[in-house]
């Protein structure tokens, strides 16, 4: 046990003194998470819980405008920020650009007259939407449809109110004719291998994706220490000291397992506290700590075993880091880490399933996004453990053949 503690201490000292490894393991994913969570926020926000801020001016004093505003609060995708009703167009434009609003909605003073079909301006357009040119057409259409829907409902209800007496004479309950409060359309997201009830937000995609990616980059410090141990004759010395192969492999795995665990904690903390501090949304963890621990342990075991295999097969550190780096990037690109799996065409989603990184990412998404538990991540964790054991077996065979450990 004391031997093992000294092996662990040695490995930790080697890792923390390897500035490149620390950069790759901690700084790279942290920076990626920050950049991707903030840069891709707009791409993901229509899917997720992120609300787009809309600058709004209500120039109408009527009750119908108030009712319209109240109905807008139901739109979770958009958040309306009201400013002074007398704000002129120049000022609105300035506020839009300076505060980075994508839309400004002007409820004109004829709004109530338009809804009630009486009074001045009853035939003029009652809403004006100013759009930042950076906004894509789809997002514009979503807001425009939402506003159309709310306005149509308001007009229909106003019409029903106008024919109130007629309905009473005909014996029709006007409440039954009012527009539905909720949309009758149920939306579900479908992808290969199952159904998403939710699509991740930028931070929900970025944190697990770059976390898994960085965990697999454990290849850098492992190959640095392992290959230099071999090249410098340290492994030979250890073998002459009767240090067992199990000790050496176990002694390599445990410290990196702990390093991976620290990565998980730090990257989750960044998603929960740093990203929202910088203007993104906060990462939500789900409710299964057990599931999170299981999938994190499985990813870690798989990543370390694969790194040990590559380090054993390679002759030089450069070879190991190149092969490992390229494999990681390919697995990452295939596995939906760089481009979310749900935007991939079906064929690519099928191909993504061959990447162990995809199993890990889906496992984390099960926990963070779909509120899954241990049973939900069990199959992915098992796949990662089996893959890891295969790599470890190949490593042992390779080392035995090389007669170096």
């Amino acid at each position, binding site marked *: 046990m004391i031997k093992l503690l*000294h092996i662990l201490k040695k490995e930790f000292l080697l890792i923390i003194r390897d500035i490149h490894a620390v950069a790759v393991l901690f700084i790279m994913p942290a920076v990626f998470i920050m950049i991707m969570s903030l840069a891709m926020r707009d791409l993901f926000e229509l899917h997720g819980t992120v609300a787009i801020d809309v600058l709004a001016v209500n120039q109408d004093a009527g009750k119908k405008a108030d009712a319209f505003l109240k109905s807008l609060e139901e739109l979770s995708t958009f958040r309306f920020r009201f400013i002074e009703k007398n704000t002129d167009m120049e000022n609105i434009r300035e506020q839009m650009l300076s505060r980075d609003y994508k839309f400004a909605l002007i409820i004109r003073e004829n709004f109530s007259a338009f809804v009630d079909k009486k009074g001045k301006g009853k035939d003029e357009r009652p809403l004006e939407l100013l759009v930042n040119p950076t906004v894509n057409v789809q997002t514009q259409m979503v807001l425009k449809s939402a506003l159309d829907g709310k306005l149509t409902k308001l007009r229909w209800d106003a019409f029903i109110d106008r024919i109130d007496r007629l309905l009473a004479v005909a014996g029709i309950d006007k409440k039954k004719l009012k527009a539905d409060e909720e949309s009758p359309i149920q939306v579900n997201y479908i992808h290969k291998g199952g159904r998403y009830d939710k699509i991740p937000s930028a931070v929900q995609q970025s944190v697990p994706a770059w976390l898994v990616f960085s965990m697999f980059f454990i290849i850098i410090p492992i190959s640095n220490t392992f290959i230099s141990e071999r090249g*410098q004759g340290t492994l030979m010395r250890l073998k002459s*000291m009767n240090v067992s192969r199990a000790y050496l492999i176990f002694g390599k795995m445990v410290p990196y397992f702990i390093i991976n665990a620290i990565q998980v904690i730090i990257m989750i903390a960044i998603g929960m506290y740093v990203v929202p501090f910088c203007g993104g949304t906060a990462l939500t963890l789900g409710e299964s700590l057990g599931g999170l621990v299981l999938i994190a342990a499985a990813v870690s075991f798989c990543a370390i075993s694969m790194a040990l295999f590559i380090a054993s097969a390679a002759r030089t550190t450069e070879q190991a880091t190149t092969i490992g780096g390229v494999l990681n990037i390919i697995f990452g690109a295939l596995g939906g880490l760089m481009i979310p799996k749900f935007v991939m065409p079906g064929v690519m989603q099928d191909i993504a399933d061959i990447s162990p990184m995809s199993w890990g990412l889906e496992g984390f998404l099960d926990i963070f996004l779909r509120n899954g538990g241990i049973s939900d991540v069990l199959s992915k964790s098992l796949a990662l453990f089996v893959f890891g054991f295969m790599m470890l077996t190949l490593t042992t065979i390779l080392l035995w053949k090389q007669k170096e450990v």
Partner: protein
Amino acid sequence: MIEIKHLYKSYDKKPVLKDVNLTVRRGSVMGLLGPNGAGKTTLISILTGIINKDSGSVTVDGLNLDRELRTIQSKCSYVPQSFAFYPRLTARENLEYFGALWGLRGRKLKERMDFCIDIGSMQSFVDKRAEKFSGGMKRRLNLAIGLLHDPEIVYLDEPTVGVDTQSRGYILATIKKINRERRATMIYTSHYMDEIEQVADDIAVMNEGTIIVHDDTQAILSRAGATCGPGNLEELFLKLTGTRLRDEE
């Protein structure tokens, strides 16, 4: 005493050791000479249990290498030609790590570390990272690690390669001191004939996997003098092993 009888070893059907027979007296320093590829490192690797032999027998102080490898390994130490330690650790951290792997604990570990720091004359740089050491400092640390558990047998594989004259002299003196004071048996490989003359009680010359000469140093020096002129061990070595280059083998 180390007794090697009819030792064979081959890699990919290519014989590396062919019927090696050698006896190393207890408490002596055996200088093992041979050109590149002669089989010196393979022989030491077998004696230290790093690789397995194909056939033959090895006994160390009466212990059979096949049956009692662990006991033999606990008495031995191997100082490889390469710097077999961790450059990113300090000398003290390296000593502590390898000492702990030898099973040393607490006060015993500290005593042995102090001894090794002293014997390697490392007091002034013991807390610096090994990657910043000069060649001589690295060689002294490499040797000191090999002496941590007070071994009865030390295998030294070219322990003075790439060091300046001062460090070389210091290392040779240290080896003699350990041999004299601790009565440690040593097998010392080197390409430097003058080193072997200085430290070895006996000399064995290997060539193409076999021992071609084995005698005490004085006898071999006398033979060299008679054959090639006074004290000319290098000439004798070339005469025995030939002038063919072995680097590409």
